[in-house]
């Protein structure tokens, strides 16, 4: 039978309604709704029982089942007996299966509407919780470092090597490109201003001091935040999703020592090296820029630069980059460890790791700059 599903009604006795099905009742075809039956019942007077006739019913699938379930619910609410003996056996048994496990009423979640104040309160609590989580994480990381110096930390040396490889050699090309360009840009922009005073030679001071003291560290920090911090968060987050971190904990291994420590160590050790490399590339970038300047040649540029940059500048740059390395690692690992158990949570963790790391780097730069100013170095 190919005609689509239809309903007919008969009333064999005063309080008995017979529902007659005909045609095919399949999902996605236009079907009568349970409301039609309800209206019929309400208009027909005091119905106490419903029976079914399915002699003319053709093919059926979930479309019929959903219809009957709705009818069932309505009938049990309004105290109408349902006599299902007229239904095909398969329909009856599937409906029984569907009713076999009672609905978990308390399981349904209530999505209460939120007032502005409670939203504000929630956000404030979240903020302070976040801050205390950060402190707790840093505390645990420090403890892990102490255990490392006592030689008690448990982690795999191979992990350390793998992480070191991922965040050193493999990061060189992008760090090289970016710092070279930054050096060149600094030189060009500086030269335009300095030419007004006929002091183009000071381009060397500008590029040298800016790169060595600050820019190289910041640029590598930001590159590594995007490249490595995000990767850390995604790695640890995926491990969280697969319960791999739980497995470490039950094995008695501290995930902080086992996973976070090697990553922090690797970045803290390698970021200074990367930023030294960035120094060199930045200065070379500046040197290339001087080729276009009429009043400065390359020899003069290097000569001036060596005189301008002090050892202190170098130490401050190296110190900053080690700090940035720790910030990137902490942000990445922390967001990864806090990750929820879903694929989108991993994405959120990676994003928030990068954001956290960049904010951290900028704030740390501000603090370091103020401190060196006060100390006069």
């Amino acid at each position: 039978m190919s005609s689509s599903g239809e309903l007919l009604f008969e009333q064999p006795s005063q309080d008995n309604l017979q529902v007659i099905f005909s045609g095919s009742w399949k999902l996605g075809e236009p079907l009568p709704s349970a409301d039609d039956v309800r209206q019929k019942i309400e208009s027909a007077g005091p119905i106490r029982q419903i029976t079914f006739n399915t002699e003319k019913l053709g093919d059926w699938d979930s479309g019929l089942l959903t219809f009957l379930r709705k009818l069932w619910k309505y009938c049990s609410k309004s105290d109408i007996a349902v006599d299902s003996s007229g239904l095909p056996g398969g329909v009856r048994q599937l409906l029984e299966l569907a009713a076999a496990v009672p609905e978990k009423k308390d399981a349904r979640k209530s999505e209460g509407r939120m007032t502005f104040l409670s939203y504000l309160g929630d956000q404030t609590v979240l903020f302070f919780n976040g801050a205390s989580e950060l402190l707790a994480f840093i505390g645990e990381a420090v403890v892990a470092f102490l255990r490392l110096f006592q030689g008690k930390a448990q982690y795999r040396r191979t992990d350390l090597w793998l992480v070191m490889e991922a965040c050193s050699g493999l990061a060189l090309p992008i760090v090289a490109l970016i710092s070279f360009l930054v050096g060149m840009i600094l030189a060009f922009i500086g030269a335009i201003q300095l030419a007004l005073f006929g002091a183009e030679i000071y381009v060397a001071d500008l590029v040298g001091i800016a790169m060595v003291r600050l820019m190289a560290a910041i640029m590598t920090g930001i590159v590594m935040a995007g490249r490595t911090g995000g990767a850390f968060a995604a790695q640890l987050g995926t491990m969280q999703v697969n319960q791999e971190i739980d497995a470490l904990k039950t094995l008695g291994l501290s995930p902080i020592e086992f996973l976070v420590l090697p990553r922090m160590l690797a970045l803290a050790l390698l970021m200074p090296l990367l930023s030294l490399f960035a120094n060199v590339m930045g200065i070379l970038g500046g040197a290339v820029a001087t080729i276009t300047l009429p009043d400065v040649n390359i020899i003069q540029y290097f000569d001036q630069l060596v005189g301008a940059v002090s050892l202190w500048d170098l130490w401050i740059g190296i110190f900053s980059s080690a700090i940035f390395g720790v910030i990137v690692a902490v942000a990445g690992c922390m967001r990864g460890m806090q990750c929820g158990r879903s694929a989108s949570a991993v994405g959120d963790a990676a994003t928030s790791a990068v954001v956290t790391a960049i904010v951290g780097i900028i704030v740390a730069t501000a603090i370091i700059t103020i401190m060196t100013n006060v100390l006069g170095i």
Partner: protein
Amino acid sequence: MKQPEPHITVKDLTMAYGDFVVMRDLTFTINRGDVFIIMGGSGCGKSTMMTILIGLKPPAKGKVFYDDTDFWASEPDIRDQIIRRAGVMYQSGALWSSMTLAENVALPIETYTNLTPAEIRDTVELKMALVGLAGFEEFYPSEISGGMQKRAGIARAMALDPEVLFFDEPSAGLDPVSARRLDDLILQLSESLSTTMVVVTHELASIFAIGSNSVFLDASIRTMTATGNPSKLLAETQDPTLRLFLTRGEQT
């Protein structure tokens, strides 16, 4: 009794990962309305067989026919059409972790039908009730137990009332009562909607309770050694490996 009508036919199939041959020379037929059991020891290639049947991995050699269509020789869009009429429950659940259970079940319905949101909600509730998860619609996969994830995966596989359902170890991790209910569900779907069921399972109780046809994959010789009704196989087989499997290692 109706004449058995072949639904999926496997001919001379060899499955391999690169050079590593998992199984070779598989030939068997799954009839319409069958509850077809794929059985064999752990690691013998049951899940791999499913990935080939559902179009995720091409066979190394041999053919798979859906009705009369040579599945792997057809154009990709023909394959898509065939697979759209199948529902799959994966061994690990494979629920989409960032969607609620209701959204998981609703996605296939939203994608392939024109039902209104209210109709979709009713259908989702029906499917969830059929697997005993009524009331858990708004939960995320990470918030329910492993066995519940399995059942939710089954609800999602059934969403579109497919012609053929593939279940990879549906009752692993379920309590005996839920496992029994699941068996009833499988039997009912195959009887009343004449859905073809392809079930990978190790549960002897369900193999004999629901299986109308089966294939046994022997890992030691890397090929199938028997196909047919499991109870009949138990009564008739002379093959010691299969006997051992069907009697839980208790020799008779």
